[in-house]
């Protein structure tokens, strides 16, 4: 989708035309919905553990971003590389991190993906082709470009998929990484999760162009503006971008618009978000929207949807039990792993 032809988000034809023909079957929709539901359930539990004093460290959630997480990562193949951010835990789940893995990670356990060396969403895992994020948002856009560079040099067609908030899109690494990927026509997809607030700062203090995707033309890359609360729209845009990248067509900048339904992190009640924005956000809750779609299209019955919700709750219950019973690292483990052998 070219920038010039990017439809307005309110375009009712978007859902009606392209999206009915995604080639997704019942099992695909089950996986997508299950992933979104699991993200919501998992992160609600993380918040609750925080309030109960059972969590280690801070709690972040991607409430409102679930369709972006699931829809984008579902467009990847096994050999592709995910370079995620903190609001797309669903993408971790799709790449193979289990709820047990991620809860152990949140609780600083020895058997988590970082063995307690780092917390919450800061975990990579090369077995699952996941690069670990760092707190310096945007820093991994150059890394994703490098992953794509190696893929291009070596062949094999692997694509890197990475993310940034509209907040992080202001940092220099956004420019350096996307420009480098554009110059070398690298197989990279960059999704800007535009949730309207960088912590507390509204978009009018973040950028002056109308849409962040407007920048695509400036970099000479493809651009797509999608409704980030519609899992099918995110999936389609990402799949198109991944296909283009795999064919040697270079990177795509996708702006996926959504609303952050909670504060920046658990401590933040988001008092600065105008009520109408928050209400609109909850009225477009991506998880509820996906559920309505599945019911309306009769892909699933109410009972089946309820069954998925029960299943997800069980997975999270189990993850909490498992993580809380898992060992903490031995103190002197702090010395290990600074250098590779």
């Amino acid at each position: 989708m070219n920038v010039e032809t990017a439809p307005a988000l309110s375009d009712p034809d978007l859902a009606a035309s392209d999206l009915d023909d995604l080639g997704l079957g019942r099992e695909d929709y089950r996986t997508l919905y299950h992933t979104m539901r699991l993200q919501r359930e998992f992160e609600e539990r993380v918040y609750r553990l925080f309030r109960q004093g059972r969590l280690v460290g801070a709690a972040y959630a991607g409430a409102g971003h679930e369709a972006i997480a699931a829809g984008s990562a579902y467009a990847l193949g096994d050999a592709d590389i995910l370079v995620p951010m903190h609001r797309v835990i669903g993408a971790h789940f799709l790449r193979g991190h289990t709820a047990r893995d991620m809860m152990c990670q949140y609780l600083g356990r020895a058997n988590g993906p970082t063995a307690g060396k780092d917390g919450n969403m800061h975990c990579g895992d090369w077995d699952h082709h996941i690069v670990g994020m760092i707190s310096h948002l945007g820093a991994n856009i150059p890394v994703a470009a490098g992953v794509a560079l190696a893929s291009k040099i070596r062949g094999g067609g692997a694509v890197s998929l990475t993310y940034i908030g509209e907040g992080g899109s202001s940092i220099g690494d956004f420019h350096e990484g996307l420009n480098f990927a554009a110059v070398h026509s690298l197989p990279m997809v960059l999704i800007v999760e535009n949730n309207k607030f960088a912590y507390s700062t509204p978009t009018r203090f973040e950028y002056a162009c109308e849409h962040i995707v407007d920048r695509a033309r400036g970099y000479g890359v493809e651009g797509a503006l999608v409704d980030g609360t519609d899992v099918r729209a995110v999936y389609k845009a990402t799949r198109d971008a991944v296909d283009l990248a795999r064919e040697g067509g270079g990177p795509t900048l996708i702006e996926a618009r959504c609303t952050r339904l909670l504060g920046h992190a658990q401590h933040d009640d988001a008092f600065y978000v105008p009520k109408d924005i928050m209400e609109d956000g909850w009225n477009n809750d991506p998880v509820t929207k996906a559920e309505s779609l599945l019911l309306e299209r009769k892909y699933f019955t109410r009972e089946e949807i309820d069954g998925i919700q029960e299943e997800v709750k069980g997975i999270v219950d189990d993850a909490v039990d498992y993580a809380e019973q898992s060992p903490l690292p031995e103190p002197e483990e702090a010395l290990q792993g600074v250098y590779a052998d």
Partner: protein
Amino acid sequence: MPPVTYLEAISSGLREEMERDESVFCLGEDIGVYGGAFKITKGFLDDFGEDRVIDAPVAESVIIGAAMGAALMGMRPVAEMQFADFITCGFNQLVNNVAKTHYRWGAAVPLVVRCPSGAIGNAGPFHSQNPEAWFCKVPGLKVVAPATTYDAKGLLKSSIRDNNPVLYFEHKGLYRFPRIREEIPEEDYTVPIGEAAVRREGGDATIVTYGKMVFHSLDAAETLAGEGVETEVLDLRSLLPYDKQAILESVRKTNRLLVVHEDTLTGGFGGEIAAVVAEEAFEHLDAPVRRLAAIDTPVPFSPPLEQYFLPNTEKVTTALRELLAY
């Protein structure tokens, strides 16, 4: 094989590693058709092609960040900073991303960042610096600074073969330094990271130094040898990790220590050496540890200012005399 320069040794070391291992590639500004600002990669583009000799935009953060991404994929990138001074633009990638990745989630990041460093005459505050100390307090990085032609090649090969990120500081003043032109082995060899080398043996005082200051130190030692004083000159070669045992052994033998570096004094790597000697060899010292370094200012441009700024043979000689006179 005829004698080669330090610069030629770096270039041939890099070339041989690229021939030996297809995963090695170069990335940097003007390294392609131009062959690099100092011509380290001259001819590489023709010989290895655009996929392995990549001209990057003027953007150090993506040069280092992309090197990290490629390293995660199993490549062994050698990134060039056009001048070591510009490494600050990639500082975050190095200290927060590259350095911490293996510790955090176990993925090795085997990359080399080549950093042409040091003052070579009136290049001013932004083309003359020795920024190594900033990185010597970053767990996860390795830092090397070869002084000799033999070491330049051997340490580069070790750096490329190491499974960790290595910052390779190559002093621009050594590139074509006639005195260190030497015949080096035709066959493959490496110099281990973390081992110092005794450049001159002596029993009366120790100079611990690295990079171009090795030669000012040797000249000062030679001057004092004429006065009957034998100075040991220890070339660290690697700063992270550094050869603590070699330092302590020498100090326990000579009982006097002068640390010399071209970087500025305060917060320079010499402070670490002084501290470790104070902690672990205090009872062997006959005099306080002495540090000689550049003055604590930016590197000034105009000749008299720059000469005032830099350590040189005369200043090392004076410091050594003062140390011995204590």
